């Protein structure tokens, strides 16, 4: 029984993953960050989006000061009188959900297109890959910048921009994996059994593309979060009143020279930690899931 569970794929995966202590810490850190974001309303002393709870008279108080409402600003307050700690956790929610949502949508679109390219082959494949190449050759920041400039601001617009920037990575990854999967015996076997091409494609090949996809997804999520922050800094990101981490940093940016470091530094550290943990985890995932580099 024990022996069996030790050799299950999951256990094997976990064992390999925990080879690297730093990565384990990063993964744990990521879990903590996600938990903090999910449970933010129960942890934070203030709902920073409820204007009735935020008081301008509390603006720019350093860490440790007490708010009019009675609680303590453990990380200080920002220029609008928001509690920086609460704003960070709520901002984390927005940044993470924008990053994950855009990643999932892009993954769905990219996987679909990638699989089609791999199985249709020929002209269809050539056209799709041409578009993918072109898209990938364009700097992400520029594409996002223009899309947001054209579409306008708002969560949905930023989401669209992030999806457009990302889908091609997934499409290329899936196509590559699917092409090599297609040559494998089980696909031939399935086809010989008379299963429809669609069925083989989505039920047999797609699941096998999962591991490279997970790797791409983690890295891309980190990219998306950082990109959203940059867009916000340039004044083209999400709306002000429900600030993401990027907007918190951008808003605090003007205080960087003035010594009111907490307004920008703490959200900056939060963003740094989040992206850092995701990247480290993704990195280790790549090492574990990519057989070429495994020992």
């Amino acid at each position, binding site marked *: 029984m024990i022996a069996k569970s030790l050799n299950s794929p999951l256990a094997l995966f976990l064992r390999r993953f925990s080879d690297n202590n*730093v990565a384990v810490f990063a993964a744990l850190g990521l879990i903590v960050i996600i938990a903090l974001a999910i449970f933010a309303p129960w942890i934070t002393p203030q709902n920073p989006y409820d204007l009735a709870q935020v008081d301008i008279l509390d603006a720019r108080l350093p860490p440790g000061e007490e708010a009019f409402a009675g609680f303590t600003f453990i990380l200080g307050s920002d220029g609008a009188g928001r509690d920086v700690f609460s704003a960070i956790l709520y901002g984390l929610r927005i940044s993470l959900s924008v990053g994950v949502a855009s990643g999932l949508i892009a993954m769905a679109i990219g996987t679909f297109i990638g699989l089609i390219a791999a199985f249709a082959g*020929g002209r269809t*494949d*050539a056209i799709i*890959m*041409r578009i993918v*190449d*072109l898209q990938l*050759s*364009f*700097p*992400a*920041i*520029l594409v996002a*910048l*223009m899309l947001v*400039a*054209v579409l*306008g601001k708002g969560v949905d617009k930023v989401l669209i921009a992030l999806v457009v920037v990302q889908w091609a990575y997934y499409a290329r990854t899936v196509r590559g994996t699917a092409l090599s999967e297609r040559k494998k015996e089980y696909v031939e076997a399935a086809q010989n059994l008379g299963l429809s091409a669609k069925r083989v494609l989505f039920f047999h090949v797609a699941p096998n593309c999962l591991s490279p996809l997970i790797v791409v997804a983690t890295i891309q999520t*980190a990219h998306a979060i*950082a990109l959203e*922050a*940059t867009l916000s*800094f*340039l*004044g*083209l990101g999400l709306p002000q009143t429900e600030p993401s981490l*990027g907007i918190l*940093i*951008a808003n605090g*940016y003007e205080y*960087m*020279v003035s010594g009111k470091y907490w307004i*920008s530094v703490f959200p*900056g550290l939060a*963003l*740094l930690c989040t*992206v*850092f943990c995701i*990247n*480290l985890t993704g*990195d280790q995932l790549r090492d574990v899931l990519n057989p*070429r*580099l495994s020992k």
Partner: protein
Amino acid sequence: MLAFFIRRVGQSLFVIITMATLVFFGVNVVGDPVAMLVAPDADQAEIERVIRDFGLDKPIIQQFGLFLKGLTRGDFGNSFIFGEPAIELILDRLPATLELAIGALLLSIVIGLPLGLVAGLFPDHWGSKTIMALSIFGFSLPTFWVGILLIMTFSVSLGWLPSTGRGDTVSVLGLETSLFTLDGLTHLALPALNLALLKISLVIRLTRASVRETMQQDYIKFARAKGLSEFRIVRVHVLKLVLIPIVTVLGLEFGNLIAFSVVTESIFAWPGMGKLLIEAVLQLDRPIIVAYLMLIVVVFVTINLIVDLTYTALDPRVRLGGEKA
């Protein structure tokens, strides 16, 4: 071969025209540049004059026709704000941006390559692990945030380097460049470093990965067995192989550097194209936005085309298969 050539060129032209259409209509639906630009107390006659001068009184289809006509002559119209040809304004700023991108590229190789080599050769050493962790750090840092920290540290606090702007320029081969003056280089240092941060991490990781892969190859084992010194193996065999993917990737990343300079240029008041673009976006200077994007499209499509044609010339299999590996 000729048929293939014509088809590829045709495809590229198609892409350029499609992009021109998308960009033109995309940019022309946002906001109202006239309301942005005229004095707030202007009367109706003045507003109408500006609309006429900018050619915005014509139906959008006619505007598009005029735009396409201008395009064939390389004319993108005059900037709404500066009143001068958009493409000239952009090309005037091109040298500054190229300088920044080249500076960042050199920095990323000079800093990234040695660190990556070390991390790849001694993967289990704690130093290598630190390097790798730091490289991920480099990936995760928001560029704009690091920019002001760099200024605060190196200009304000230590006083070593100038905080903003571009230094003295000299004319080299007809181009005004600040790469060959001391003042120019000191001004370039901080923004180039800021822009290079991401690429340094990339070079470290690429180098490490290919060093690790190369070190496992049979011929390296063979060379070792032959008793060649480790230094010689690295210098002669590994480095050569490692450099190829790095140069390739960095070549591709150059466009990305130019694009990302938007952020760096804003912070360091660097007079490049990126700053021009972001100001044009904020002020709805449509001809500049369109010209900038078209310039980038044409450059990328041309690079892609050249790469494709070169591949084909070198490797006839590509022609037959119709797809690249």
